[in-house]
């Protein structure tokens, strides 16, 4: 396992040679995430979405880049900032919005909420609200594929903050020692909740600079360039799929909104948001597509279609009745019930 840094060049404008279908898929996925997350934000302000929400505005390229590179039977594990990943794997928009609004049509009928979006049939094996908890679980899903002899891969997304929790270190060591087909992806959006990640981490790159401790390559990628993300994803997934073991990728990105709804993010230095918005992943990708010769009209059409899809999903979710109390004592156990006594 080489220690030489293999960092994908930041800001490459064309990246690897991808076919048009893949590019359009990458663009569409980012659009869907962007427009749905914006809608989720509005719905929260209108009090349709209760509780809290952790939005991925600005981080769309990471989710899209990996999802497009994954196979349908691969597994995704993500954090409570998981709307993007769940959507990117193909979960229906009405299910995501419905879950946020606590409606019957929600992916989990209102039982899980924003922080636990799950769609097993799409390979979205849960969004996890305890920081770092899902890294070992992802390793376990990879172990399962290894035992069963399928060449499925598990991809596990987490934030920069998670690199300092115990489960991160346990999972990485474990995955390397057992050579598990899992890709660990750190979405470094520079902030661990309200605190700049650098002020609480012993190394500069919270994930990439720990890779060598586990015998892994140091991999940093521009998280706002969907092509670069896709390339890194494809490489790591391919490595895992061929039995060569896990990877740890650090994707540099930025979140536009606060940590959660409650956070106006006043801890950010003035101008930082604006700087990052100049490198908005969708604006970037749109410009690249035009550069590559895609007609403006086609892009507009896609944007319109996605907006319509988001609008339809919104109306459908609003029309769905609130979750009903009959589900409260269901599905603790596999038999569908919750009884602990006779």
């Amino acid at each position, binding site marked *: 396992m080489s220690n030489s840094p293999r960092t994908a060049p930041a800001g490459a404008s064309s990246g690897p040679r991808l076919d048009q279908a893949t590019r359009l898929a990458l663009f569409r996925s980012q659009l869907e995430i962007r427009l749905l997350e914006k809608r989720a934000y509005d719905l929260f302000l209108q*009090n349709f979405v209760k509780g809290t929400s952790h939005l991925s505005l600005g981080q769309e390229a990471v989710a899209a880049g990996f999802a497009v590179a994954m196979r349908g039977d691969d597994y995704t594990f993500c954090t409570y900032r998981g709307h993007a990943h769940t959507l990117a794997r193909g979960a229906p928009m009405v299910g995501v919005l419905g879950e946020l609004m606590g409606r019957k049509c929600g992916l989990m009928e209102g039982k899980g909420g924003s922080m636990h979006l799950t769609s097993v049939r799409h390979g979205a094996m849960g969004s996890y609200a305890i920081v770092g908890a899902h890294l070992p679980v992802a390793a376990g899903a990879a172990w399962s594929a290894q035992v069963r002899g399928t060449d499925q891969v598990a991809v596990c997304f987490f934030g920069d903050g998670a690199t300092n929790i115990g489960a991160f270190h346990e999972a990485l060591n474990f995955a390397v020692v057992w050579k598990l087909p899992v890709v660990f992806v750190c979405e470094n959006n520079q902030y661990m909740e309200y605190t700049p990640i650098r002020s609480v981490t012993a190394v500069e790159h919270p994930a990439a600079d720990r890779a060598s401790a586990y015998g892994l390559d140091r991999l940093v990628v521009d998280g706002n360039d969907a092509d670069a993300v896709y390339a890194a994803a494809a490489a790591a997934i391919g490595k895992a799929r061929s039995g060569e073991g896990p990877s740890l990728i650090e994707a540099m990105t930025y979140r536009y909104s606060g940590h959660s709804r409650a956070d106006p993010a006043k801890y950010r230095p003035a101008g930082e948001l604006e700087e990052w918005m100049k490198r908005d992943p969708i604006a970037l990708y749109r410009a690249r597509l035009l550069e590559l010769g895609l007609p403006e009209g086609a892009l507009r059409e896609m944007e319109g279609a996605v907006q319509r899809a988001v609008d339809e999903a919104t109306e459908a979710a609003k029309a769905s009745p609130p979750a009903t*109390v009959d589900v*409260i*004592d269901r599905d603790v156990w596999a038999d569908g019930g919750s009884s602990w*006594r006779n």
Partner: protein
Amino acid sequence: MDVVMPQLGETVKEGTVTVWRKKVGERVEANEPLFEVSTDKVETEIPAPVSGVVSAILVAEGSTVQVGVALAVIEEEGKPLARAAPASGPPNPVAATPEARRPPRPATAPAHEGGPPLSPVVRRLLAEHEVDASAIAGSGAGGRITRDDVLAYVEGRKGSLSPQAVERVPLNRIRKRTAEQMALSWRTIPHVLQAVEVDFQSVDRARLARAESWKAEEGWALTYLPFVAFAVCQALSDFPAVNASFDGDALVLHRRINLGIAVDLGGEGLIVPVVKDAAGKSLPDLARDIYSVSEKARAGRLAPDDVTQATYTLSNSGSFGTLLTAPIINPPQVAILSTDAVTNKPVADGNGLAIHPVGVLAQSFDHRAFDGAYSAAFLRKVKQTLEGRDWAADLTRGP
């Protein structure tokens, strides 16, 4: 109808009533401003939902209450005021937890006063089998009545399981009534027994002298009972608390002395006919009245009035040959006297030994009404009368 705190925003859970525009008793029209609410510093005027009179204001100005809580009541014309329980926020839709399987509450006997407490199963079994705790001896720690004690008692009552070994004898009406009365008396009245030994020598001198002529005139024998009754009436005049009823927080002293005479109906039960105004009567009249009511009782010819208003009871066990009886008080009376057998006994008469007729008079009294000293003094008076009165003079006062 109830006026409740409205929900003025999706996440608003409470509001503060700042101003009432109407007072209790004032009329209000539907949609007329009734009160003002402040939520997060936003003031909102709330109109009355219906027309009517404000019959109650439940929440003062300045109070903060949850959404849904009743704030006031408007009585609408022609509509009866069904005072429903105030709504307390959105109804909790989750049904009562299916886990609670509390069985319906069975009837239980009251907790035992005095002595170790009765366990839940014992109380339930006592009530189910209509057994009084006082009927059972406890074999548990400290004399506690255990479940098995009750079950054994109930089983014992039933007798053996084989049908040939038992015969079920239903109680007649009088016995049933007596049983109820006895149990009630025993359960509710704190009985104390006091006894005196009485030398009937004086009584006998007069009684025996008159016995033959009395029998010939009246047709029945002159017994000790009328003498005891007479002495009791004298004593009751001096000790009015013994001729009283206990009434919770007062003792009701009766001016009349109505003597109840307990009559044994030969196995059919007990009945207590009453000789009214016994105090003023001469000894012969008293004797005749006692005989008369007793005969009526034995013949079953008592009128309802004959068994009411007794203020004191005499229970004559003399013919049974017993030494001492602890009788049960007839509520609402506060005492009862038992006269037992009078037999010849050696007594010390100042000069040495003599043989005199001696009998025990035992009074059960209600300790709520008076104390031992009072009762003892009463009994002393009865004794003194019996032992010291010139009975011959009473008997020669003609018919």
